[in-house]
């Protein structure tokens, strides 16, 4: 579904990504794990074309999206849930969700109501807090709101940037359960995580990113038992 070939990104003189190849298939959960500064977020940003690429080609559903404007990439069905939630703090939960539909111009008023029902079914807690300000939610609820906001545009591929960041372990578990539920809805998920243990458990396949290069790839289970991964990322 999504193919990345030989992607390189530079920040000034520093190269953040060097020749990354990545493949995401329809209906899969793919996870990208790695330490701080490995280039995980950079990979997502370059898929959404929010930063400039030095080299490489990205195709989505067979179409070249390497140089496409961000809003057109969203229209093609890629949704990017940015790191650190970045919900709109002084808009209400409902308004936050409506803002999620802005990017997909194909959505009509009637679709919107249907999207709301679908999203509220996944996140019942957001329905309760519909009128509350986004900024007044707890961290976990904000993360749910950020994911829900992304789902509002009915994407085919949803890219999650560290959804477990700064959340209590029990909430993290809840978020990962939701990610599995979203997969059951037929969405493809590209998940970026520092919490490698959790991410690999839910993922179909995973990639390990070290200082801008992919060093390992395989199914989630394979990586979980890989001695190198266990030592470096699982602390065992």
């Amino acid at each position, binding site marked *: 579904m999504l193919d990345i070939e030989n992607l390189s990104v530079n920040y000034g003189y520093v190269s953040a990504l060097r020749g990354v190849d990545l493949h995401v298939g329809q209906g899969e959960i793919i996870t990208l794990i790695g330490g701080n500064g490995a280039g995980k977020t950079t990979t997502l940003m370059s898929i959404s074309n929010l930063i400039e690429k030095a080299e490489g080609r990205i195709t989505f559903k067979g179409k070249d999206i390497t140089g496409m404007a961000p809003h057109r990439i969203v229209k093609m069905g890629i949704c990017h849930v940015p790191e650190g939630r970045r919900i709109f703090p002084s*808009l209400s939960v409902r308004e936050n969700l409506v803002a999620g539909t802005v990017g997909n111009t194909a959505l009509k008023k009637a679709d919107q109501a249907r999207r709301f029902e679908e999203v509220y079914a996944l996140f019942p807690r957001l329905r309760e807090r519909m009128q509350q300000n986004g900024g007044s939610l707890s961290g976990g609820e904000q993360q749910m709101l950020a994911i829900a906001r992304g789902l509002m545009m009915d994407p085919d591929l949803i890219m999650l940037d560290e959804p477990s960041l700064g959340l209590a372990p029990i909430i993290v578990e809840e978020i990962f359960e939701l990610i599995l539920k979203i997969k059951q809805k037929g969405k493809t998920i590209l998940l970026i995580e520092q919490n490698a243990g959790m991410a690999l458990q839910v993922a179909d396949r995973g990639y390990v990113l070290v200082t801008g290069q992919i060093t390992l790839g395989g199914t989630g289970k394979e990586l979980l038992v890989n001695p190198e991964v266990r030592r470096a990322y699982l602390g065992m």
Partner: protein
Amino acid sequence: MTSKPVNFFKSIPLWVKVLGGVALAALLIALPIVYPKSYVMGVMCRIFMYMILAGSLNVINGYSGQFNIGHAGFYCIGAYTEAILATKLGLSFWIALPLGGVMAALIGLLVATPTLKLRGTYLAIVTLGFSEIIRLVALNWEGLTGGPIGIKGIPAPVFFGFKVTRSIHYYYIFLALAALFFFVTYRVINSRVGRAWMSIREDELAARSLGVETRFYKATNFMYGAFWAGIAGAAFAPYFKFIASDMFSLDEGFNILSMVIIGGQGTLLGPMVGSVIVNFLTEFLRPISQYRLVVYALLIIAMMWLRPQGLVGASNSILAAKKIGGKTGRGKRGALAPAGGK
């Protein structure tokens, strides 16, 4: 934390709102018949005009989080466009009025395009300079604008053969324009476009990741605000019959900005209330002439201190410091940050 001004407004049942709206409309329509004093009509005309000006500035500053303090420039363009078209080409007011708005919107696009990447104070400085440039062009382009003498004898509008001359007639024109502005803006703010503007105000990067084409929406936002400022200017020119460049100085821009701040940024009602208050104050304080500017300054300082979100508690505004509270740490900064606090 729990007392929310929004909820107060939202808790009023719909029929009360409708009834209140109808009563207010009837009162405003009947006012000139009951109390046709030309002084009062003049003040009301100004209030309505500033409602459009402050309201349109609020669309830019309050809804998309851009920071424009050169709104007088767009106002100036609208007024001069109408005056020149009416005196030199003899165009009817009803044609020149929208053209004034369109002209201001085009110049708005011209200002917005190179400044799309600027935000906060930097954008404010550019708009400040722009406003002065417009004023200086009007002052020095003698062939077109009459230079320091200005444009005199701007013809009165004709409404189906009826010549609009007295302020009581203009009252209805300004009332209709203000009502139109209110209605159209209400619709726009609650549309896809309005959501896009607000998402840009809240977090530009998040908006982009959701597929909001920020450059396009920021430019249209600027154009929309400029358009209505131009309309206000174009309606003002024949009303005053005479315009000169010094009417559109920076002070005028700050005057409009103060209405927005006092009323409440990011609310539809705020600038309307701000316009009423500031214009009434102007009238009450006439006896102390230029010292009234001191009163404005004190008022703004007091507002920043006591009610940074403006009189009409800005429900959607980043200025509504208390609502977000100390948790996100935005509260304290929020007070003086129409710049978006970035």
